[in-house]
């Protein structure tokens, strides 16, 4: 597969739910997905619920480090984190940690709508000045790209799954509210995820 040219600008805004469905449809090897707080994990549930999904109900900003831990614990499994721009901005240091540790099986996808959408759409710094893909590149994640459209997003995901280093994919998305959410039962969510990725015996 040809290495895609680096793209360093946020392009047209896409539909987060549709992109989530496209992402899940590309997964056939039991890849783990960590869904960040709010719409990232609500859409993950609605578009592609599966036992290998972990739904984070609180701890804003911690989806990427959770994904890093899973990736290190299970180096043979690809791990994908879905996170929002507001959440990632809360914990930009995690990108430096990933640049340093360089787990080959970790992909971070950020849905960037430039707003704290769940709380009324207050703008985040990405709406004004911060380019999260450039932040990720500067933190040491060499393969960091903005998806230009839906097909480009799919190609970036495929490239991330076979690449030998961590990947970061930015997607500019519309501020659409999610239509569903996982059940708010953290122990059930954890148990299902652990059995889904073989960390506990399957029932």
């Amino acid at each position: 597969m040809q290495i895609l040219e680096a793209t360093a600008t946020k392009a047209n805004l896409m539909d987060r739910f549709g992109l989530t469905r496209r992402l899940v449809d590309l997964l056939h090897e039991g890849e783990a997905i960590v869904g960040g707080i709010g719409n990232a994990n609500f859409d993950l549930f609605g578009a592609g619920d599966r036992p290998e999904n972990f739904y984070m109900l609180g701890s804003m900003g911690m989806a990427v480090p959770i994904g890093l831990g899973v990736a290190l614990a299970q180096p043979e499994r690809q791990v994908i984190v879905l996170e929002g721009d507001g959440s990632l901005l809360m914990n930009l240091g995690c990108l430096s940690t990933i640049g340093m540790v360089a787990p080959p099986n970790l992909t971070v996808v950020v849905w960037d709508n430039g707003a704290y959408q769940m709380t009324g759409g207050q703008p985040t710094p990405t709406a004004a000045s911060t380019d999260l893909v450039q932040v990720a590149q500067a933190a040491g994640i060499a393969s960091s790209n903005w998806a230009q459209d839906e097909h480009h997003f799919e190609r970036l995901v495929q490239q991330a799954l076979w690449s030998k280093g961590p990947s970061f994919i930015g997607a500019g998305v519309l501020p659409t509210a999610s239509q569903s959410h996982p059940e708010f039962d953290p122990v059930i969510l954890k148990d299902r995820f652990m059995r889904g990725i073989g960390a506990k015996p399957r029932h």
Partner: protein
Amino acid sequence: MDWAEITLDRLQRQDVRLVTFVPDGALAKLIQGFETDPDIECFTATREDEAVAIACGGAMGGVRSVTLMQSSGFGNIANALASLATPYQIPVLMIITERGILGEFNPVQTPITRVLRSTLDGLGIPHVTLDDLSKVEFLVDRMASQCFNAQQPAALIVSPMLTGGKTAPGSAPSKRAA
């Protein structure tokens, strides 16, 4: 053996494989021990809550995980404990070296240490304080076992009685208890 050597030995025997930390001088020897074990992945996080979350991911991935921090850094992790490790029942073992007591010279170190144990109590996280070398092996072993087997976060607080703490700049180094 000192507290760090005993702790390293007991956690290696418990098959700990992932260690994340924000460093503290009092933890340097323990960190070095983890780093030299080829079976253990050990690295810094930029914040203590990030360290806890990485350990949570490791634990859910099936690997026994430990997080190290200084007591002042505990102030950064309330939400990671309250909305991740505790309600999800994720077994992360924290080792917290204690400042703010027994000769602390820096007043900003004392308030967080005053609420360290009460915060853990309020969250329902079991904790013990290591302040007697003769009890370190038993306490580390049992708390690690409880954490990993009962699937709940737990904390070991390491007293200046064992680490020597940190003395005022320019003062004579304190005699270490162990």
